[in-house]
């Protein structure tokens, strides 16, 4: 019987994905880039839409929310999972609204009148059944997948607008987005890149070897020398793990120092981040530390090894995403286009 088989198959896949997420965070499994995670999450959500049993949009949203909560709980630091879930929820809402026939604009506008009369709760309960909803939603998710596949290339295409010749560019750690950004610019321009190695994982080394193989003049420096060489740097281009709702960043360890040094020398700080990294979270006061034993630890010593840094939006000059460049003060607006306010808390 196709029904139960499909269901078990679906649950298996979900379980496999969850365990992958858990392993990826602990460092034992293969380290995945966020683009991959986003794509896999979206593919999985498409499968859920196709194979799970639901009759109305509300059901589907419930199912997705439930699975989404499990996924984010498996790996809290991997925010792209949550972001994709919220995107899909927004897609479902939109498709539902379109099927109902009401224009999108009136739904999205939060006028003062609407706030007062609705009493804070939406009147929609998404209970109506539409036959074409499934197909529409799956089509929309496919569009999303295409968008995801093209993000790195879209960002890289903008490289020549931001890099002139004979520049000295600084970056930290390893970001696939920044790597392709710089490689694309290197095809037409000659410039010099300084990579801060980002101890203790020293991801910067891999970035440097990969850039130098593309023929870019690269120099590797220790983290301690960031301020010392900053006076000769023209631009700082970094990637990030998450872009927060206020325009700040959750980026790899050492980025805050880099941002402060750039601010001191008035060097522009450019962040290359695709849209799927935009998260409606705000900064959490507790950092998730990742303990990495690289030295003999005496019994009386505490060792801290945080993985991420928070960078406030005042230190950032520009965001480059697959839909163009934005100032940090514009991020909140983009977020309202991507996610529905009710989905901020899954």
């Amino acid at each position, binding site marked *: 019987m196709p029904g139960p088989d499909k269901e078990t198959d679906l649950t298996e896949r979900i379980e496999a994905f969850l365990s992958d997420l858990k392993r990826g965070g602990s460092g034992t499994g293969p380290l995945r880039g966020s683009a991959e995670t986003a794509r896999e999450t979206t593919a999985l959500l498409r499968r859920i839409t196709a194979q799970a049993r639901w009759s109305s949009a509300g059901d589907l949203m419930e199912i997705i929310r439930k699975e989404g909560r499990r996924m984010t709980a498996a790996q809290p630091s991997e925010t792209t999972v949550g972001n994709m879930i919220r995107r899909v929820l927004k897609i479902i809402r939109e498709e539902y609204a379109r099927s109902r026939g009401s224009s999108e604009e009136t739904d999205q506008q939060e006028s003062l009148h609407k706030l007062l009369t609705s009493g804070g709760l939406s009147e929609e309960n998404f209970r109506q059944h539409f036959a074409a909803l499934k197909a529409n939603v799956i089509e929309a998710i496919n569009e999303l997948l295409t968008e995801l596949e093209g993000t790195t290339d879209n960002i890289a295409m903008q490289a020549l607008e931001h890099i002139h010749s004979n520049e000295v560019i600084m970056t930290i750690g390893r970001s696939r987005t920044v790597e392709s950004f710089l490689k694309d610019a290197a095809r037409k321009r000659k410039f010099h890149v*300084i990579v801060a*190695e*980002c*101890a*203790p*994982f*020293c991801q910067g*080394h*891999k970035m*440097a*070897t990969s850039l*130098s*193989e593309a*023929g*870019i*003049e*690269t*120099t*590797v*420096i*220790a*983290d*301690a*020398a*960031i*301020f*010392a*060489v900053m*006076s*000769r740097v023209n631009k700082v281009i970094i990637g990030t793990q998450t872009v927060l709702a206020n325009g700040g960043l959750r980026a790899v*360890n*050492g980025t*805050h*120092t880099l941002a*402060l*040094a750039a601010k*001191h020398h008035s060097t522009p700080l450019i962040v290359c981040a695709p849209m799927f990294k935009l998260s409606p979270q705000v900064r959490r006061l507790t*950092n998730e530390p990742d303990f990495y034993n690289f*030295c003999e630890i*005496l019994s*009386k*010593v*505490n*060792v*801290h*090894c*945080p993985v991420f*840094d928070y960078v406030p939006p005042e230190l950032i000059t520009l965001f480059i995403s697959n839909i163009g460049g934005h100032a940090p003060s514009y991020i909140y607006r983009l977020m309202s286009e991507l996610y529905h306010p009710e989905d901020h808390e899954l």
Partner: protein
Amino acid sequence: SRFSDIQPALFCNLFIAVLHIFARQTEGKELTKEEKQRLRKEKKQQKKSKEKKDEKASQESEKEKKPVSSASPASQPPTQPITPKAVPTLVPVPASETPAPADKPAKSKAEMKAERRARQEAERASKQGKKGEVGQQAAPGKPKAPPSELQPVVKRLPEHVQVDNPEVLKKLAKKLERQQVSYRYIPLRSDYGYKVSLFSHLHQYSRKAPLTQQLSIPSTVIHPAIVRLGLQYSQGIVAGSNARSVALLHAFKQVIRDYTTPPNEELSRDLVNKLKPYISFLNQCRPLSASMGNAIKYIKKEISNIPSQCKEEEAKSKLLNCIDRYIDEKINLAAKAIAKSSIEKISDGDVILVYGCSSLVNHILCEAFEKNRKFRVIVVDSRPRLEGREALRRLVQRGISCTYVLISAVSYILPEVSKVFLGAHALLANGYVMSRVGTSQIALVAKAFNVPVLVCCETYKFCERVQTDSFVSNELDDPDDLIVTRKGKTQLEHWQEVPSLGLLNLVYDVTPPDFVDLVITDLGMIPCTSVPVVLRVKNVDQ
């Protein structure tokens, strides 16, 4: 360079040949003072007349990679470097080269100095933009004018920041030649690996190729204590500005103990000249620090102040006492004074952040702990030196509770910190603090979080140089130190084979004075900008 392989082999053969020739010539004869003087005067004449010719000739020879070039064989026979062609002309060199202390040289030295200065002004005017700032030499600058006069600054740019200038390298090679006493060569250490273009004016050596491997055996020019010291410096066994100065002074004590004045020589002149090749050698092993420079200045001054009628034993014991007193006063007592003032700044419940391993800061913290102050320490460390682990070990042994982080986690941990204590390698005359690379970064982040930054520094580390960034005068360490293995893979293992990849391992950086709130010295607590005042006061004392 490829020549460095060939040269040692050639030298061994040449030494023996040259020695034979020389021994035959001056068997059992010692040149008298007058003869030496005459030869030096001759040399001076030759130099003056051939000066302009030499400049033009040397321009063409800039292409040569050999540090020792044979650019001007004809014009300057007295200072001919050892090359295969030059063996016969080498012979008259030693006669004029042996430093001849006499009563008259005081005058001719001044004349020569004036000449040299005039020459350098001309050179400087002809070159564009190579000399951006004045630097001070380690050699003793005689403080003639009283400090109330503003002295005209005619200082030479130190050699170690002119690596990209082949003329300077040539001059250094000649200087090393001149300083040898029995024709054993003090080799010029060759650079290693690809240098980042911003730093092509600095040396970059490999730790795996210490200078001592290039020395011939036995080396009668360099005292064995100095050879050992040089090796310890280049391998990083003795590190830290206080440790290096103390080791240097102890080695000099040994040298003085083993020294005997040759006949017809004065101790005050000859000993200073004996020390010059040692200092050049140590400079080649690892560039001298500001504290070492000041210590050397002090010793040279003490030696030249010894009255000529003093007996040798008495003079030597006097010098040894001077050195002991210097170490005591400037380092040990200063540390005690600084600790006393700093303890007032440490209150109960403090969380103190320290960076790397500064002997002075460790001393302060241990003293404060002895006086029963309750605080805890956060030790910040950085690759590739990882000196913080040593500081951590010392503090934990005393029982102080510590936390350990890498420098990239500084902005994570700084909200907990109440004070930052930093050590210094030198304090520059414009108020900048020269210290281990990463110090300026910590000061920057501390300023952003409004945490007070205190720098602890003894006054003997104050230096008259001025500097605004970390590029013009710095030290490049072995670039291979940055290579590391993570998860079984060494990414940068073959960095030399990739033409566009460079590794940069800086040792020092300068912290602007607006990041530093207070400097604690043995003369009291001063702001960063009062450094030139202290220097002026010290000059008056001397």
